[in-house]
């Protein structure tokens, strides 16, 4: 299918959008046909999301115009966009946790009333869901839902407003593989109903599986457009990252072969989750110098609580954490930082940076601890003067070494793209000379170049004798980088495997709590 011969629903003409220091969209023109799945493919910061945010009325374009069904429109707010039949589901969910699914769906819609009968509403929404063929129990509260269900509700929310174009921004980044399949089924069903889907992604395999037509963006411009039948991984990848980046696709990493003595040892660890439940149940694991130990599991199996406990952010209910043969179970985070533990947290914008602080202050956030010696009175009180020049120099060094693209060091972090924020965090955590790195979802939402960069950096660190605890829901990533992989399910260790020696099927069974290795087997692998 080519865009010239289709029923055009939306046309964006010569869109230009500039932000301080970057041109996010540089004269971009795009057509969306009725009932097609259009993938917009590009690296982080290529301008995909900006373009769709313009269509959805979140940004006004600096230049250019939007036509819907041939009529020129101005989308000054999402309200205008929805009125014209354009809906969007963002990467981050916008549901109200304490409301039911049904209430979430009607909230803010035209026919929403302040007084309503909850029972009737739920029945009405149930009917609506059956009509659409997409079902999430409408009486459930939003906080009870899994990521996949939440996304369905977001989609239903958009459909309830009778939209004809649905934009999905990186919809698979928060989903497990099974949920991704569910999402694809949903997309196909919507397509049959004549709804156009815009699928923003940087994952080649997903785009090839679901899209009818693929538009590739790079550095704010459209660099290619092709039908699925003409596309393949190599071609798309070369368009996406430019010819120069070709060699780095699917980079293979050689694992470090010499590991040293035990660095981190976690013994019978029990940790409570946010709702008071046991999130980590009797976990035992160890990381040696120069070793990468992976933690695999379905999202929400206790990975986050485990990492937070090791870093001192969450109290330990039972068990011990040893670092270099010294117990650190009760130490505050700052002491663990001084001992040489680094943490690359998941959800980088939430836990990793202060969006309003400038780059250089974000980079120095932890380095500041290593300067406090408690010797001087001023330092003990915390009122020692900042050495801005030193901070700037250090930040410049990190920015250069880790390739953070920014207009200047005093730019606030909120102006950076997701990939560059991650580079900043990785740089901050690795440059302060850690002995142990805890990396949580370090490549989530990153493009190929940035992903390879992060992985290569971690492997390099392990070669220099640094221990790495790699927590990731990307099973392929865990298996290809780690020496040993701990499989978690429901907060319990189901088994420990050496990549290449266990079958994917076995690992899958363990991830879903369907198989558990015996203690002897696990001990044997730890002893290796």
């Amino acid at each position, binding site marked *: 299918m080519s865009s010239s011969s289709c029923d055009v629903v939306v046309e964006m003409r010569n869109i230009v959008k500039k932000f301080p220091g970057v041109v996010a969209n540089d004269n971009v023109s795009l057509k969306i046909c009725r009932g097609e799945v259009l993938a917009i493919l590009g690296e982080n910061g290529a301008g995909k999301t900006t373009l769709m945010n313009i269509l959805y009325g979140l940004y006004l374009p600096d230049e250019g115009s939007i036509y819907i069904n041939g009529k020129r429109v101005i989308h000054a707010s999402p309200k205008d966009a929805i009125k014209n039949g354009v809906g969007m589901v963002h990467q981050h969910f916008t549901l109200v946790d304490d409301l039911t699914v049904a209430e979430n769906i009607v909230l803010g819609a035209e026919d929403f009333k302040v007084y309503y009968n909850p029972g009737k509403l739920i029945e009405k929404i149930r009917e609506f869901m059956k009509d659409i063929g997409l079902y999430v129990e409408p009486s459930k509260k939003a906080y009870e839902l899994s990521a996949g269900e939440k996304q369905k509700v977001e989609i239903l929310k958009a459909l309830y407003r009778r939209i004809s174009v649905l934009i999905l921004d990186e919809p698979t980044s928060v989903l497990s593989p099974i949920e991704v399949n569910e999402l694809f089924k949903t997309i196909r069903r919507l397509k049959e109903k004549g709804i156009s889907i815009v699928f923003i992604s940087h994952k080649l395999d997903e785009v090839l599986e679901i899209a009818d037509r693929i538009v590739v963006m790079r550095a704010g411009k459209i660099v290619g457009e092709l039908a699925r039948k003409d596309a393949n991984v190599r071609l798309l990848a070369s368009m996406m990252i430019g010819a120069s980046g070709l060699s780095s696709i699917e980079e293979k990493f050689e694992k470090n072969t010499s590991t040293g003595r035990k660095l981190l040892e976690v013994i019978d660890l029990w940790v409570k989750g946010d709702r008071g439940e046991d999130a980590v149940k009797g976990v035992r694991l160890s990381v040696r110098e120069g070793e990468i130990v992976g933690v695999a599991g379905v999202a929400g199996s206790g990975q986050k609580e485990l990492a937070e406990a090791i870093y001192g952010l969450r109290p330990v209910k039972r068990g011990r954490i040893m670092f270099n043969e010294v117990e650190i179970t009760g130490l505050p985070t700052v002491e663990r930082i001084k001992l040489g533990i680094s943490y690359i947290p998941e959800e980088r914008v939430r836990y990793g940076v202060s969006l*309003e602080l400038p780059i250089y202050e974000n980079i*120095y956030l932890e380095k500041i601890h290593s300067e406090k010696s408690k010797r001087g009175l001023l330092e003990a009180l915390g009122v020692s003067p900042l050495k801005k020049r030193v901070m700037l120099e250090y930040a410049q060094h990190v920015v250069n070494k880790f390739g953070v693209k920014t207009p200047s060091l005093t730019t606030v972090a909120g102006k950076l793209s997701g990939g560059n924020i991650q580079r900043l965090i990785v740089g901050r955590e690795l440059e302060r000379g850690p002995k142990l790195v805890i990396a949580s979802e370090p490549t989530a939402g990153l493009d190929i170049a940035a992903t390879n960069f992060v992985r290569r950096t971690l492997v390099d660190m392990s070669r220099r004798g640094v221990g790495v605890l790699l927590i990731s829901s990307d099973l392929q990533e865990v298996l290809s980088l780690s020496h040993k992989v701990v499989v978690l399910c429901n907060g319990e260790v189901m088994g420990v495997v050496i990549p290449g020696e266990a079958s994917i099927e076995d690992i899958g069974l363990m991830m879903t709590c369907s198989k558990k290795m015996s203690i002897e087997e696990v001990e044997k692998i730890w002893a290796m």
Partner: protein
Amino acid sequence: MLDGRLKEYLTGFAEVVVAIVAGMLIGGLVMVIGGYNPVDAYYQLFVPSLTTGYGLEMTLSFATPIILTALTFAVGVRAGLFNIGAEGQMYMGALGAVIFGAITLPSILYLPLEFIVAAVLGMIWGVIAGILKAYRGVNEVVSTIMLNWIAYWIVESMRVYVIPNPVDASKTVSVPPAGRLPLLVEGTELSAAIIISILVLIFTYFLLWKTAIGYEIRAVGYNPLASRYAGINVRRVALYSFIIGGFTAGIAGFCEVAGRPPSYAITTGLSNLMGLGFDGLTVSLIGYNHPIGILLASIFIGAMKAGSRNMQIYARVPLEMVQTVQGLIIIALSIPGLLRIISRRIGGVR
């Protein structure tokens, strides 16, 4: 990126100008309806207090304590806290200074001791809310409002029972001449307190932007989660913010007692202190919680206070109308700042 920051400052400035104009238009409308001449009234409100020597001196003397109580609120906001306890902390500071009216000391010791005791009492009053917040999770808005009233009644009962003025029952003992800050201009109320006030302002600026603890305060204010993940002790930051705030508010109390003629005491019902803490809140909001903004905003509010007498006498606008008009201007000015804080509190991390 200087031009980006400049643009930010300019939009901030434009916001303030639009707010002033809007407030004055609504106030003007009210005056027209009431049958008064708004042009004349506004002229008398602002021009003499900003252009004549005497007016300017009055303006600055009114600005003195507000600068300090504004800093209390600003340091709180920077740490992500809504500390509205400047009022009570200032009462305690004033108490700390005025008790020296009942103590005989070598002359040279009065001022330093008044300063120190005022600062310490202010800090203690601040840190109580800080401890409640950091260790028990008590909402600082609730605790500081309650502490304000506790301080009010402590000071009021001290005035009546412990340190009443022997010749005038409507106030406390006055601090002796040796314990008063020198007047900068004879015949006005402008004393060296304004210098102390500006020094404290510079000190706070330095603390927030040039020291490690200030860096931590700002980081926690913007993103407490990321700060905790970066090993910052969030409790300690909350305590510090309340202590610094209590310090500046305590000094405000000291300035009012030791630096404002004619009483050099605390008057009945704390009438010479009341409201200065909340004026500071307004000033901080108008001044973007930034020391430089606070300085400008406090001069503006000081000018309105100084000009209200002129507005009554020369433009013949009754006091109630003057207060209504001033209230409208202040509300208009506070709206942008309030909206920013509310949206940050509701929106959390973007």
